[in-house]
């Protein structure tokens, strides 16, 4: 089979599998988040936590619960890293330095999983499984909880009550993430991913050298790191490591896992607002952007533009032989289109335009399909902005799903949208303006700017992948990127929940002849257009100085 055809089949089979799961998984998640019953395990958990599962919360209380849970998580993870040498199963690792421990704690709690450290030489078993992997679960569950709550804002009328954060958190973790991860972990082990709490051991190689076995509960963490769109692997080279991603079919499975929740949530949304077609419209927006982006990235990588790829004859630097260029490009697109940040190849060595596409994917705000949960609430806010723009064109108060988009709603939506660009651009500017920031660049010229732009984009959008040549394990970058991750996650959550609160209070507006239908291809096209135009207007100057300058010469 010719390589190009194989690459196309690889992408097509993934899309087909996602399409097949869209309905059953979306419906299952609908039942999880709307069902009235608590199972026995959950009742025990609620008793231990000390919350009333049937009491619902106003948006402010819900937001404070999210923030309280996240704050406690950051402190807990920070302490775990700082004290790891005193703990069981530390593999002899030293306590993590304060700036790095802060960065890592924020990184995992915010679902970013930016890793300024090298896992195999920094973190012991306990920190990996009882600290970092736990956040892989709960940070994804928090994202999904917030998304469901924003949807409740659209679905409910004349109420202040938006659900119970603790119930959403626990159900998302116990009923959705845990079972899928468990099955996926076993399948990955069957493929060769390791799963052991053994100690290091060494062997003498065939040629007489020495190699060390780096153990870890890898498969169990790999499963949730992809499913929860986290991205924080056990090893420095992440999913390129043969122990995390041993074969070409585990590679397929990992890409599938990191897309499946985000592509199924629109079904959940459609069911909750009582109109499947609204969900299909949203998934169509996500799908169109994703397919265009995957196509362009593959094209850029397979045409191997640039001096070094031309000298090599293929864009193969930083790729594994078993995956090849095309499947690596698919993984890279999927990881940046969601908020994952797992990598099976190294983006720093991508062609200028291919690497630029990956930055662009993240700059889209990760809505195509975006992170577990975060993608859905991101795109719903873009849909709100779209109906507003459309309303301006015809001079009519915009509505979406029977709710008026008035001054308060559009202010909250704009606030949500503006936070990330502010963080990305100010962060990159601060890094470029200071010696401490610039010294991190491995490459010089436009590629150096791309490295820093990528870093601040990745942090502010809670992605976590990197142009990994950049040496970000410094006090300056650990601190500033940590701030970008924290603000990039929690500041937008507040206006998103406030918007939900404000929508839920409204009485429904009956649809009239003048109402913009939001389930037709016309609306899908408008949301795609608004998304791309907003991003292009915001970031084109920065992209022109980095990847575009490098790619066009």
């Amino acid at each position, binding site marked *: 089979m010719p390589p190009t055809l194989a690459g196309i089949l690889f992408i097509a089979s993934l899309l087909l599998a996602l399409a097949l799961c869209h309905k059953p998984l979306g419906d299952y998640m609908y039942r999880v988040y709307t069902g009235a019953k608590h199972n026995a395990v959950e009742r025990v958990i609620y008793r231990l936590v000390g919350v009333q599962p049937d009491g619902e919360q106003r948006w402010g209380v819900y937001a404070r619960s999210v923030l309280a*849970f996240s704050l406690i998580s950051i402190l807990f993870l920070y302490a775990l890293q700082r004290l790891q040498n005193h703990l069981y199963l530390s593999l002899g690792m030293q306590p993590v330095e304060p700036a790095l421990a802060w960065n890592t704690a924020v990184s995992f709690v915010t679902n970013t999983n930016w890793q300024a450290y090298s896992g195999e030489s920094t973190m012991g078993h306990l920190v990996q499984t009882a600290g970092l992997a736990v956040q892989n679960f709960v940070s994804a569950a928090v994202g999904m909880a917030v998304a469901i709550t924003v949807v409740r804002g659209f679905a409910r009328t004349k109420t202040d009550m938006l659900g119970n954060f603790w119930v959403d958190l626990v159900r998302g973790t116990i009923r959705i*993430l845990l079972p899928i991860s468990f099955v996926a972990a076993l399948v990955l082990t069957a493929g060769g991913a390791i799963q052991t709490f053994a100690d290091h051991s060494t*062997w003498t*190689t*065939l040629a007489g050298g020495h*190699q060390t076995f780096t153990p870890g*509960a890898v498969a169990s963490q790999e499963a949730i790191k992809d499913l929860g769109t986290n991205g924080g692997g056990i090893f420095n080279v992440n999913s390129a490591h043969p122990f995390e991603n041993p074969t070409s079919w585990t590679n397929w499975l990992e890409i599938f896992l990191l897309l499946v929740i985000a592509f199924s949530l629109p079904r959940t949304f459609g069911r909750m607002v009582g109109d499947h077609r609204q969900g299909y419209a949203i998934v169509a927006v996500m799908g169109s952007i994703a397919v265009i982006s995957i196509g362009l990235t593959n094209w850029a990588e397979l045409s191997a533009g640039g001096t070094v790829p031309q000298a090599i004859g293929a864009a193969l630097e930083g790729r*594994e032989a078993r995956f090849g260029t095309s499947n690596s490009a698919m993984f890279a697109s999927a990881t940046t289109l969601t908020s994952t940040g797992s990598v099976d190849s190294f983006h720093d060595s991508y062609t200028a335009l291919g690497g630029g596409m990956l930055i662009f994917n993240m700059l889209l705000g990760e809505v195509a399909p975006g992170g577990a949960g975060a993608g859905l609430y991101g795109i719903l806010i873009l849909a709100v902005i779209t109906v507003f723009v459309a309303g301006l064109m015809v001079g009519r108060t915009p509505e979406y799903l029977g709710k008026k988009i008035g001054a308060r709603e559009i202010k909250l939506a704009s606030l949500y949208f503006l936070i990330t660009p502010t963080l990305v651009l100010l962060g990159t500017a601060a890094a470029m303006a200071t010696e401490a920031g610039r010294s991190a660049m*491995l490459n010089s010229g436009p590629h150096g700017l791309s490295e820093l732009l990528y870093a601040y984009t990745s942090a502010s959008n809670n992605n976590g992948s990197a142009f990994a*040549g950049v040496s970000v394990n410094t006090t300056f970058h650990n601190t500033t990127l940590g701030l970008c991750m924290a603000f990039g996650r929690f500041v937008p959550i507040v206006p998103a929940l406030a918007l939900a609160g404000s929508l839920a209070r409204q009485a429904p507006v009956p649809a009239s002849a003048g109402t913009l239908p939001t389930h037709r291809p016309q609306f899908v096209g408008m949301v795609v257009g608004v998304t791309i135009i907003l991003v292009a207007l915001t970031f084109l100057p920065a992209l022109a100085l980095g990847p575009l300058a490098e790619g066009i010469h």
Partner: protein
Amino acid sequence: MDRMPSWVRQHVAALRALLVLTVATGVIYPLLATGVAQALFNGQANGSLVEKDGRTVGSALIGQSFTDADGKAIRTYFQSRPSAAGDGYDPTSTSAGNLGPEDVIDLPDRTSLLTDVCARSKAAGQLEGVSGARPYCTPDGVGAVLKVFPDRAVSVNQLCPATPFIAAHQGLKVECARPGENYAAGRTVPVRGNVTTVAVPADAVTASASGLDPHISLVYAQLQAPRVARERGLPLEQVKALIDEHTTGRALGFMGEPVVHVLKLNLALDGA
């Protein structure tokens, strides 16, 4: 708990929720997964170790260097891809090269990716007795890159007293680069040259993503086969048959790329 202010109550609930979920997802889940994985897939869960004469010599998933103590290729073995993990194939410091597509100019403290590619190509060509020539590479195995000034051009990766790979560029005399001199102000012009056939394949000149890639391409294995057969005094056909035996095609016919497992191939040769 009811007498505490609500913000304290919220944080106490948060702490308790975190602890409960830590037990569920950070203790029970990994232990259960480990237990089942160890029972069902014992070999894989423990690293797919490979033994020779009862002694562990590696993992089927982790590539190895087949070089001697000085880093020179052992001629009786198939060679792996270049590796950026530590000193090469070091599982305790996995890494990719991370240099970009326009990294073409050597710096005082490191060579450029282009020069790395050219040098690897030249070395592999020499080892296999074929031409190591590639586009954008000089015959002496560095990146063919000029810095062009109004009155002269400098082949920046060829340090004096090297002879520049071309004598003149658009009427300007090409000089070798004087160590320590700063050529940053010049215009960068990579020179493609007129190489048409490239004998050394792409995977032989590029570092993998993990630095632990256990595989090479079929083309690279076939390039090495005559040398290995000669050094071991084996018929070429037998070596080629071993390559076929240790080749994995695409999963389901379309996933990934066909690859040859270097460690298993070399082990099979030792047993042949």
